[in-house]
Every structure is written in structure tokens, then in C-alpha cells.
């Protein structure tokens, strides 16, 4: 593998991680002014900001690697949905509060394992981004875990909605642990993370929270995948339309 190949692959990989962070950050930000009460509104808004900050760090590094005049804004605002490579779970509509918190738990637990490994990457910039992000993720996980316990073990209605969210989301979690060739090769080069190796620990951790919250782990009877290849659900286009509208209407605008 030549240095140029490696650089191109690291660039693609960094964009994937940036896309995950931007798309989920945008989704969470939709709760701002719609939260169940003021304190939660502020708290969840902070989580959205953490993700958008994370996206900026990845895109900034991607721009550095690309070294072709593109900036972080070009990556965020001027690519279409087929060029986005985020996992599908991040683009699903926010749903009700239970749905958002169940997704949050699944993603937070994934990030806990993922970022801990990425922090040991041979790529110093990716390692530094991960080292910063994992502190935020520990706090996010503390919140989402507690919400799962409250909602799962709460009222009959909150239990029902939370269990339904677990089932609706489960099929989107499998692709998190199916590295493609690019991810496999970067993992072999000690730059990326072999996510397949994270699965059993992740599943145990999810099962532990669900059982404490009186919820059940679903069967693996369906799976949707494709985010890493640019095949998205219909939701991403709508999300990007809103996210990119200002930049597309007023190219290069600043405030």
C-alpha cells in the first residue's frame, strides 16, 4: 500500500466519521425547543453541540488530508446524500423521546468502545480527536443509560414506547459491526478500528442496560445496511435539505 493510497483511505475514513457525527448532531438538534422540559432541552442541546463539534474536527482534518482547497464547509454543505457515508441509524427521524434515547444509548455504547480504540490509532490526529470525544461520550452514556432506566421501568406507556423503539432500531445496529474492505485495511494498518471485534462487548452492554430497564433484547431477524456505501434511507435527503439550505441559497455566507 503506497503512502498516497493510505492517505486517500484515511481521508475517506475520516469523512465517514465526520458524517456520522454531523448527521446525528443535526438529528439531536431537532429536539431544541421541543424537549420534554426546559432542563432536558438544554442538556440534550449540549449533546447535539458536542456532535457538531466532533464533525468539525473530523472535517477539518479531512480538508487537511485532501489539501485541494476544500474546507470543512465544503464537506458538510456541498455533498449530496450519495456522498454521505454515515451509518443509517444516525439519519433515522428523531421519533418520540423514547426512540431518540434508545438510539442514543446504542450509539453511545458503540462510541465508548470505538473511540477508546481510535484513541490508540497510529494516526495522531484521529487519536487526539478520539481522546477528546470519548470524554463527551462518557457523559452522553450516563444520560442515555439513565433515561433508558427511567423510561423502560417507568409507566406502562413509557415502557411500551421504549420497547417498541428498541425493536424498531435493532435491525439498524448490525452494520455498525460490519467493516468493509477500507475499514479492514485501515484497522490492519493500526489507523482505523476493527468494529467487528467490538460487537460482543457492545451487545452485552446493551443487554445489561435493557434488562435493568425491564426491556427485552430483540431477535436478529432483520437488518438494513448500506450507509457506508452511500445507500441511504429516504430520511437523509430531507435532513440534508434543511442542513444545507442556507449554504446553498447563499453560497459562502458567514455570520
Amino acid at each position, binding site marked *: 500500500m503506497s503512502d498516497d493510497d493510505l492517505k486517500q483511505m484515511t481521508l475517506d475514513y475520516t469523512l465517514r466519521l465526520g458524517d456520522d457525527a454531523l448527521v446525528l448532531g443535526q438529528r439531536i438538534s431537532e429536539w431544541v425547543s421541543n424537549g*420534554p*422540559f426546559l*432542563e432536558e432541552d*438544554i*442538556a440534550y442541546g*449540549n449533546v447535539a453541540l458536542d456532535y457538531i463539534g466532533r464533525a468539525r474536527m473530523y472535517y477539518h482534518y479531512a480538508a487537511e488530508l485532501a489539501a485541494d482547497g476544500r474546507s470543512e464547509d465544503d464537506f458538510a454543505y456541498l455533498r449530496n446524500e450519495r456522498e454521505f457515508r454515515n451509518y443509517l441509524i444516525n439519519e433515522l427521524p428523531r421519533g418520540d423521546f423514547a426512540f431518540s434515547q434508545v438510539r442514543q444509548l446504542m450509539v453511545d455504547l458503540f462510541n465508548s468502545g470505538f473511540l477508546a480504540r481510535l484513541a490508540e490509532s497510529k494516526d495522531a490526529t484521529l487519536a487526539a480527536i478520539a481522546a477528546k470525544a470519548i470524554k463527551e461520550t462518557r457523559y452522553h452514556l*450516563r444520560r442515555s443509560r*439513565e433515561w433508558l432506566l427511567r423510561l423502560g421501568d417507568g409507566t406502562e406507556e413509557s415502557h411500551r414506547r421504549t420497547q417498541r423503539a428498541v425493536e424498531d432500531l435493532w435491525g439498524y445496529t448490525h452494520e455498525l459491526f460490519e467493516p468493509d474492505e477500507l475499514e479492514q485495511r485501515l484497522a490492519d494498518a493500526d489507523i482505523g478500528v476493527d468494529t467487528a471485534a467490538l460487537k460482543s462487548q457492545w451487545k452485552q452492554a446493551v443487554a445489561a442496560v435493557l434488562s435493568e430497564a425491564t426491556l427485552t433484547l430483540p431477535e436478529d431477524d432483520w437488518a438494513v445496511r448500506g450507509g457506508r456505501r452511500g445507500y441511504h434511507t429516504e430520511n437523509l435527503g430531507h435532513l440534508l435539505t434543511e442542513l444545507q439550505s442556507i449554504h446553498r441559497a447563499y453560497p459562502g455566507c458567514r455570520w
Partner: protein
Amino acid sequence: MSKEKLELFEVFIRSKRGLDHKHVGSLHAQDHEQALEYARDCYTRRSEGVSIWVVRSGDICASQEEDSDSFFDPSDDKPYRLASYYKLPDPVDNM
């Protein structure tokens, strides 16, 4: 979730090691643990603090307006009984 099921908490933040906790405001939460997290999110996001206390507002025992005379009208004729009578050396900050 209806706000009626939430309780009111008072938030105290210590901004620096060695200083005391100061009251900064209040918030709603379901229990102490959640109140602590919301205090972090609502009051310390710009690194204002190194320590947070939360206290159920209902657990605070407060003096009443009608107690002011007996509580707050000390005799001023023996100032040496008050800490403020004594001049502190400059190196002693934050007493």
C-alpha cells in the same frame, strides 16, 4: 413528561478550589442524580465550576420576614465580637 412530577432543586457551584459553594440558581429534575446532571448542563458549560451541590428546595429551612427583628438586629456596642472588627493580613484572601 409533565412538569408537575418534577421537583425543584437549588444549585450551588464552587468556581475554584478553596472557595465556597455559591448559590447560582434552581432547576427542575426528577431526583438528585438528574438534578446534578442538569446543573452541569445548565450552569457549568463554560467551565464555571469545579464542584456542584444540589439540594431539594423543599429541604431548605428558611428564616421568615417576621423573624427579622430577633434574627438580624444585633447590638452594635461590642464590635470586637464581630470578625469584621479584626484587620486581616493581606495574604489572607477569601475569608
